[in-house]
């Protein structure tokens, strides 16, 4: 601050400024509004030359900064290599997660019929055993063996059902691939725009670019805005219950 005020030298000498300031106090005391305005004008004029100098100096600084910005080699590498690289990596993450999800889905699709078979066969076997026991009612030894086999088959059926439910859960968990893929696509889109802007800025020291370069359209709900993050605003439903409440309020 003190450095700035040092540079900020008025154009008019001290005597004149003091005289003007005293006259200003006098004008205010005498409620001479016209003279008061004129004197304020005189006093500010004493500085305005410096203000223009200052604006000129700032303009040069901005210009120099932009030039050194454009000449910064890292920035060139950034737009030409690193940002496209980052995009490729994100695309690769999408590919990897898709492969993983597809593989998991294939396995659950193969495993589910196996669990189905276990459930079906243990149930059928139990029914057949029950018939045998009914026809051999006078054989207590057979009865007790069949009894323990039936208990075992019951638990197998139950576990087979559990297995099926768990396989469904594993399948549903692969939903992450859609959501993470959509979010990554949006980050990739953002990177592309950032890259565009940077390239534009780099060209600024060359003849000024066309001012009517297409501006990025603001996100439009109608086009779809993608999955929302957990800390999203109030404008976003948090779960299916919110959706149902909203639709109910609309008469659904």
């Amino acid at each position, binding site marked *: 601050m003190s450095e700035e005020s040092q540079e900020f030298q008025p154009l008019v000498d001290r005597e004149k400024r003091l005289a003007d300031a005293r006259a200003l106090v006098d004008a205010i005391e005498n409620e001479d509004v016209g003279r008061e305005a004129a004197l304020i004008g005189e006093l500010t004029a004493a500085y305005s030359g410096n203000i223009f100098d200052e604006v000129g100096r700032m303009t040069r600084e901005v210009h120099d900064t932009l030039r050194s910005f454009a000449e910064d080699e890292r920035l060139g590498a950034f737009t030409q290599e690193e940002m496209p690289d980052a995009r490729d990596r994100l695309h690769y993450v999408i590919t990897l997660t898709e492969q993983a999800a*597809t593989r998991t*889905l294939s396995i659950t699709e193969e495993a589910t019929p196996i669990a189905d078979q276990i459930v079906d066969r243990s149930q059928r076997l139990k029914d057949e055993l029950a018939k045998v026991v009914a026809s051999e009612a006078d054989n207590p030894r057979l009865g007790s063996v069949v009894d323990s086999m039936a208990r075992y088959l019951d638990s197998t059926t139950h576990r087979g059902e559990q297995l099926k439910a768990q396989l469904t859960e594993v*399948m*549903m968990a692969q939903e992450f691939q*859609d959501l993470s893929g*959509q979010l990554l696509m949006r980050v990739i889109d953002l990177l592309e725009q950032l890259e565009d802007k940077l390239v534009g800025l780099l060209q600024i020291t060359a003849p000024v670019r066309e001012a009517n370069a297409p501006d990025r359209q603001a996100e439009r*709900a109608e086009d779809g805005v993608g999955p929302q993050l957990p800390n999203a605003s109030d404008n976003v*439903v948090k779960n299916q219950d919110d*959706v149902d409440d909203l639709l109910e309020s609309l008469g659904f």
Partner: protein
Amino acid sequence: MDRNMKILVVDDFSTMRRIIKNLLKELGFTNLEEADDGQTALPLLRQGNFDFLITDWNMPGMSGIDLLRAVRADDSLATLPVLMVTAEAKREQIILAAQEGVNGYIVKPFNGATLKGKIEKIFERVES
């Protein structure tokens, strides 16, 4: 509700199409077809005698909301029940979908029970 009804599943992510189809199979539906966006879905719908449409919102080509509009504007499809299963979760979007005539709306991530419940509810209304 007819378990043999013909259902079209529209989503640009193959993972999600597969998950929805698997869930539908578990619910006993076997007559299933798929498309990856509105543009491919619409011709299928026009020639395919579909009984039910399940669609995502955000897809390249033709979005789910535009597909819904096209369906409602087509005399032969206007009454087709449509369920949206999407990550789009803004209130204005759900309201828009309702105004355009959607029959149900599920926000991802979702589960099989939700899908079952919504389908049952839609067909209770359609059949009543």
